[in-house]
């Protein structure tokens, strides 16, 4: 019985190939966006893991509390006392003129999971690493160093790093007998003395610096995930609509089958199998598309991560079975969720119940009430989230509550508006039009909700990005006040450069920096000179009256906004920076794009605190027309690398480029979401148009022409879209406000002013209305072309 049943059910899809396509495409699109984002995230995460593994291992690390290098003798003492540690040295150097980040490891003691360590001991790859000076790098990284003779490409290494044997690295970095940290093996022997007995200067730190990286980038990935989920939800609307339609249209067939003796259970099982086939097909297409989307977007994501966080992520995508299975599971799960409702109804269908095709469209008032209640509850939750929420996840939860709450409120609002219009209408025709529109809202509401979400996201994200851009460009102008920025390769060259530059520049401003721990977090410390360059330009958000005089004394410091927000510090507060070091906060400055906390203090105070530090970077003040000649002269006179001298304009251009690329992904996902929403409207209208013949036939019989009916259909779609658009503007602005004042603050630690961009809304309005027109054009045209006989049949045929 299964076969004929299945054949009968399947015949529907042969008759309705478009519906079949819609179902598969809708599900595939939903899966594609979701799995695409997942692929990007997992690629980035695996890069972090590789980097963590490469640099500090997944486990614990021993370091000097003061950040100074570890002496080789200390490593030996630890090993000889039974501490299983492995040395690492790290630094920047040049290989055939290209700046690289070099990691020195000891393969013989490296922890088990170290990829470079393994490769160094393998017969195929290891030759020459231990004693021949061979270097290792990931294939892409190695390809970037074509002139290097002794570099070997090793799969699975963290991108952007070059690995050398510890001794080779010490030599290349000119730091003999030094290490930066010791990796602690997971397994340690039975008896070993306390760390304090052997190496009291060293302290144990669990989780490497790349753990910080994962934490820092978490918010970025959460952002992407939120987009993926949104797209998926929108896609599910389509699937829900299509499956609903297919079930509705087959009601008569179900009834016949049941009457012929097919048990309800079998019917449901066969339908489940049918859905399974759809889910798997769509899942296959969707994951394929998702892979393409991820591959297309990954270079931008990689650039963003590098620019924003200094995280190295390969621009190429690896296929992961795990990811693919998740994508398939999501497709199947999504189909299940979208079809539960319909299947439930079918299972409960009495054998000879008269088919009620309108039942599905006529969502009961009870549902409407439930939706309204849900909407209010969610919006209240969002309000509570704004007031009491803490953390990025809470921020996104607030956002979710706001968006879904607003979506649920939409049908209610639309019904109110249409009801109002109907009451105002005087003539029969408009009255019928409004009444008919009102009763269509339940059927269209899911698609309209999808449109609302897509539009609001568009407005919200657009507002955030544009506000950010405006603030950021202004800030860059203030922050980058010097004409030239210069980096020396070592102290000797720095001294030479200073002597040479003194008569040729208006000012040489040394930039010294180091890392300390502030309130338990790693923080950057920058030393800046007392100079008008800073006094006149530095972008201060808050300041004490004579802020620069206070900083000049060395007693006061400036902190960045991130530190101020994270620790709730204000100007006038006193901050403890070390055991015998406290300083007054004289000002707070904006520091966009920096994921870390940072303080600024006077150069002299910096020298006193960190006498071992030498300035290797300098900001130079020169008359603007002298910039290029000075750069040329510097490059000619000194052996400087290609990036060692940069002018202000280049840095600005670079910063803006990073900024733009950061949001390329958001923009791309935005457009994709909007197209999915447009598609949702199309499918919903198609669904409705097929079912509405019985309602339109009487109107036609009363004398309204095909053409008028079709025009009205078109008008209705545009009107509903327009109303949704109007609702989307305040929602989008609310979204932007949450993004700027909650998410940004929690995720990055900076607050941004919000600017409004009505022109952008106008463009969006045109796009949205255009999409609605396009989506309704075809159903309207179909209506226009419906043969009169077809309409007449409504009266003949009782169904």
């Amino acid at each position, binding site marked *: 019985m299964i076969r004929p049943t299945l054949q009968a059910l399947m015949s529907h899809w042969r008759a309705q190939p478009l519906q079949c396509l819609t179902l598969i495409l809708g599900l595939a699109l939903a899966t594609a966006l979701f799995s695409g984002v997942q692929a990007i995230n997992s690629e980035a995460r695996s890069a972090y893991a590789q980097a963590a593994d490469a640099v500090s291992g997944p486990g614990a690390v021993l370091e000097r509390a003061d950040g100074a290098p570890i002496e*080789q003798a200390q*490593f*030996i003492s630890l*090993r*000889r*006392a*039974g501490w*299983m540690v492995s040395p690492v040295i790290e630094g920047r150097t040049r290989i055939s003129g290209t700046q690289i980040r070099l990691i020195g490891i*000891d393969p*013989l*003691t490296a922890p088990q999971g170290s990829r470079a360590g*393994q*490769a160094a*001991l*393998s*017969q*195929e*790859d*290891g030759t020459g690493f*231990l*004693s021949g000076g061979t270097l290792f790098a990931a294939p892409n990284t190695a390809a970037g160093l074509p002139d290097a003779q002794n570099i070997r490409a090793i799969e699975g290494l963290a991108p952007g790093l070059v690995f050398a*044997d*510890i*001794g*080779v690295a*010490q030599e290349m970095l000119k730091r*003999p007998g030094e290490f930066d940290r010791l990796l602690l093996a997971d*397994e*340690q*022997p*039975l*008896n*070993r003395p306390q760390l304090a007995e052997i190496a009291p200067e060293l302290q144990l730190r669990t989780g490497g610096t790349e753990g910080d990286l994962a934490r820092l980038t978490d918010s970025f990935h959460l952002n992407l995930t939120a987009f993926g989920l949104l797209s998926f939800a929108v896609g599910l609307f389509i699937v829900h609509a299509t499956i609903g339609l297919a079930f509705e249209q087959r009601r008569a067939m179900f009834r016949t089958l049941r009457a012929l003796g097919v048990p309800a259970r079998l019917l449901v099982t066969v339908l489940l199998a049918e859905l399974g086939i759809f889910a798997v097909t769509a899942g296959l297409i969707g994951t394929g598309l998702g892979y393409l989307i991820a591959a297309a977007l990954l270079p931008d994501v990689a650039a963003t991560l590098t620019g924003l966080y200094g995280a190295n992520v390969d621009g190429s995508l690896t296929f992961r079975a795990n990811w693919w299975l998740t994508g398939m599971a999501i497709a199947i799960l999504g189909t299940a969720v979208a079809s539960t409702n319909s299947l439930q109804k079918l299972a409960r269908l009495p054998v000879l119940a008269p088919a009620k095709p309108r039942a599905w469209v006529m969502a009961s008032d009870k549902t409407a009430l439930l939706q309204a209640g849900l909407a209010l509850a969610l919006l209240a939750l969002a309000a509570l989230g704004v007031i009491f929420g803490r953390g990025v996840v809470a921020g996104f939860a607030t956002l979710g509550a706001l968006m879904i709450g607003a979506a649920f409120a939409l049908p209610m609002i639309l019904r109110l508006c249409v009801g109002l219009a109907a009451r105002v209408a005087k003539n029969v025709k408009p009255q019928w039009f409004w009444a008919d529109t009102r009763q269509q809202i339940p059927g269209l509401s899911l698609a309209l909700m999808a449109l609302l979400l897509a539009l609001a996201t568009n407005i919200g994200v657009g507002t955030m990005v544009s506000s950010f851009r405006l603030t950021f460009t202004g800030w860059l102008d203030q922050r980058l006040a010097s004409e030239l920025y210069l980096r020396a390769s070592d102290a000797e060259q720095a001294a030479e450069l200073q002597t040479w530059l003194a008569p040729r520049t208006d000012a040489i401003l040394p930039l010294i920096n180091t890392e300390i721990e502030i309130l338990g977090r790693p923080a950057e410390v920058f030393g800046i000179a007392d100079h008008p360059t800073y006094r006149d330009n530095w972008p201060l958000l808050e300041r004490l009256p004579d802020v620069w005089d206070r900083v000049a004394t060395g007693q006061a410091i400036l902190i960045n906004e991130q530190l101020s927000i994270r620790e709730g510090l204000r100007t006038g507060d006193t901050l403890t920076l070390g055991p015998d070091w406290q300083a007054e906060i004289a000002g707070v400055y904006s520091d966009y794009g920096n994921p870390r906390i940072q303080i600024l203090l006077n150069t002299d105070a910096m020298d006193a605190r960190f006498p071992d530090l030498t300035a290797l970077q300098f900001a130079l003040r020169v008359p603007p027309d002298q910039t290029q000649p000075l750069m040329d002269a510097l490059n000619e006179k000194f052996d400087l690398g290609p990036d060692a001298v940069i002018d202000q304009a280049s840095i600005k251009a670079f910063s803006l480029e990073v900024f733009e690329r950061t949001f390329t992904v958001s923009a791309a996902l935005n457009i994709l979401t909007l197209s999915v929403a447009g598609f949702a409207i199309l499918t919903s209208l198609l669904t409705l148009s097929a079912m509405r013949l019985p309602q339109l036939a009487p109107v036609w019989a009363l004398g309204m022409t095909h053409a008028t009916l079709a025009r009205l259909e078109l008008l209705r779609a545009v009107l509903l879209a327009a109303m949704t658009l109007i609702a989307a503007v305040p929602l989008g602005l609310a979204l932007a406000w949450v993004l700027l004042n909650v998410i940004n603050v929690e995720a990055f630690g900076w607050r941004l002013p919000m600017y409004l961009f009505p022109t952008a809304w106008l463009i969006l309005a045109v796009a949205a209305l255009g999409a609605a027109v396009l989506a309704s054009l075809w159903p309207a045209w179909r209506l226009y072309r419906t043969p009169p006989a077809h309409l007449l049949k409504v009266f003949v045929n009782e169904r």
Partner: protein
Amino acid sequence: MNVKHFLIAVLCVLAGPLFAQGFAGLGTDADGFSTPTRGTELTFPEDHGAHPDYRIEWWYVTANLKGEDGKDYGVQWTLFRSALEPQTKDGWQDPQIWMGHAALTTPTRHFVAERFARGGVGQAGVTATPFAAWIDEWQLAGPEIGSVNMSAQGTDFAYELSMTADGPLVFQGDEGYSVKSASGQASYYYSQPFYRVEGTLFLPEGPVKVTGSAWLDREWSSQPLSDNQTGWDWFSLSFETGEKMMGFRLRQTDGAYYTSGTWIAPDGTPSPFGDGVFKAVPQGTARVKDKDVPVEWRLTLPDRELDVAVKALNPNAWMDTAFPYWEGPVMISGSHKGRGYLEMTGYD
């Protein structure tokens, strides 16, 4: 797998085709490593130290111990040296690679630990005077080789033993020149089989005081096996009569064997015997780590009227190290009674 390949290459214990260049006949091989020559007189204490111009070398101690609890125990302490080039250099450039293996065998359990280090920086090495061999915190050190402390540990076991030699050093083969194949591969090889041992084993259940005997093997060469040899079965046996015997069987790809060994009188006088005299025949195997390993043997040496059964104290004494093999204490019964150690390579 990679690590293992490397180590096989480096240690060339089972090197075969990798280092098949053969002997140049002038005391050095194609890569510049020295090779043993017959008639070279070993000098002490210098030869207790390292010979970096030879490719491989080891300091190999096995001990048969009895605990206060009445149980039999076995302990292994080994330091391998393997040279990438026939020289030493200061610091990390040193081409001398060191590897330590430690094991503790009880009748029911077998504990293993392994260490790696590079020479040149002090993490591992051997000095002749005062005698000290170490890798990390493991050491075999004393004022001199006749009186040493030996310690090692892993994540779940440790031992600290003091050892005193009751007899002289014993030269294997021809005055310390030990031939390893019919085609002439050889190594320098001497032993100290007369250690009296006392100390403590640290087991998960707690410490156990032990006493017993230990045997040190010192061996260095640049190519101990020939191409057609796939592994060895090596025995060091101490009989209740005070006599001792070292015997090994090198397995060949053609199914034949090369055997050799030394009978050691209670006063330490060695009597070497050549290929074919000593016979070792597997009597039973155990399934260890998915491999069939012969853990019961019949050994015969007609010259000495030796006909004994040798049986592993714990058949699961598999050394699950980067370069895996079987090594554990054995009990001897038959014409002679006693205890000893068995090492089997090439079964992985």
